[in-house]
């Protein structure tokens, strides 16, 4: 019950919006599939929704005072922010289930791992952006910079591509042994987030 309340409080969206997002992402991925760009479009959707969602939510909480109330409570801050990012991962993934299923049809099951780890990376980055930003314009700037970086790393084939879940969506790895490497970056981002918030 508490987890459900936490989810609704921190990452909750109305069912109408979830359905609308699911429909919109499905249409976009469906159209992109005609041009063999379905995985790339899905990666862009994850980056935008995963980075901006938690960042803007945290800023809203800072403005309405709920953030301060959480900050002065005895709850462990690393635990809270990791839970926050976790709840946002669910909130971002939920409407993307149909679109992910379509991409999996084309690109195989490796997509699922890349989508999950990519969403974790995006939401943890977004949470970090919201944490360091003082206001809405700061958050927009941070979210834009992070999204831009992730998009660039998605479209350019770099040596680091093996570690980037979004690059794995655009250029699926042929070697299954490379898959565990995808989880490294989200884990590093989570550790960074925990370290950043621990002094709050």
């Amino acid at each position, binding site marked *: 019950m*508490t987890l459900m309340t936490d989810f*609704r409080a921190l990452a909750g969206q109305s069912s109408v919006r979830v359905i609308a997002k699911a429909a919109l992402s499905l249409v976009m991925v469906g159209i992109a599939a005609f041009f063999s760009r379905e995985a790339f479009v899905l990666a862009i959707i994850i980056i935008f929704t995963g980075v901006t969602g938690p960042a803007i939510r945290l800023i809203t909480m800072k403005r*309405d*005072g709920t953030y*301060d*109330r959480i900050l*002065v*409570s*005895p709850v462990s801050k690393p635990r809270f922010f990791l839970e926050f990012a976790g709840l946002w991962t669910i909130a971002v993934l939920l409407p993307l289930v149909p679109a992910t299923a379509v991409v999996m049809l084309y690109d195989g099951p490796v997509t699922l791992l890349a989508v999950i780890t990519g969403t974790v990376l995006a939401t943890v980055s977004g949470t970090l952006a919201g944490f360091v930003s003082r206001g809405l314009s700061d958050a927009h700037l941070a979210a834009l910079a992070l999204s831009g970086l992730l998009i660039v790393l998605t479209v350019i084939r770099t040596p680091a591509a093996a570690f980037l879940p979004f690059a794995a969506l655009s250029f699926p790895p042929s070697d299954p042994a490379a898959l565990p490497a995808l989880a490294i970056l989200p884990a590093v981002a989570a550790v960074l987030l925990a370290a950043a918030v621990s002094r709050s």
Partner: protein
Amino acid sequence: MSATVVARDLCYRYPGGRGIVNISFEAGAGEVLCIFGWNGAGKTTLLRVLSTLVMPQAGTCHIGGCELSRDRTAVRRKIVPLFDASAHFGHLTGRENARFFLSLYGLPLPGSLDRIAAAFDLDLDRQAGGYSLGMKRKLLLAEAFAAEREVMVFDEPTLGLDSGMCRVFFEQAREAARAGACVIIGTNRIEDAGFADRILLLQNGTICPAASVEDLVRGMVRVTITLADRELVEHIPSPDDLPQLVKKILSLGVPRKIEIGESGADISALWTRDAEEKVQKAPPFLQKMIRSLVERYAQDHGLSRITPEVVDEVKERFEQR
């Protein structure tokens, strides 16, 4: 009475120079302590330090035996702060909000919440987004009392509450104090200060010797503000502080009438006909307030006549502030 809160030489300065300087005081278990200060006195800064929201730049503060700068998490387990904001998730009901915020203190939803909410005449099953400012404030208070912490820190707790609900708040505060809590209230309302066991007067960032309500009222200007649903009586140090008060009251509703307390001496004979006519051009509900402000100004400046220029000057000063 043992001291639950012991502050020694607390300092916190904002870059602009405002803040608190060398604040020392003690507050004990079972006590309702009022920290009284006008706008800008440093009251909210002090309460933010006590709430662990900001760390003091100098000095020490022990809360329940734990030092604030060294063991912040332990202090946070002992306090429940309430700030001057209506901080809730609008899309959740009052009960869901209470469940969320009390879970941060590791508390399940206590049975006492319904009793406290009933005392505040609050419907917990409505969406918090639909609450009025007063109801949001009541929900914050209900959550704070239900948390039953050792130290309760309230910043302007009665903002948005009518006089009946203010009384309910102080009854709850008294009950919490009887149960052993130390209740610290920051306010600039003289009526609130009257309910406290002890008053500390905060002026220009420093604590002045223990004050009484009579000390606070002395030299103050009484302002009566009539809203659509209630009448508020406030006190301000000078008419110059009226714009700030009106700004604050606007969050509760648009004032229908603002009356400023009598200045004592009869100076109505100072008015020239032109000045009278100038005031009569203002909306009727403002005329009495303008007259009072102008008369105060004339009295403070030792003017022998109130001319249209004097009215303009007062108007300009009011608008500037």
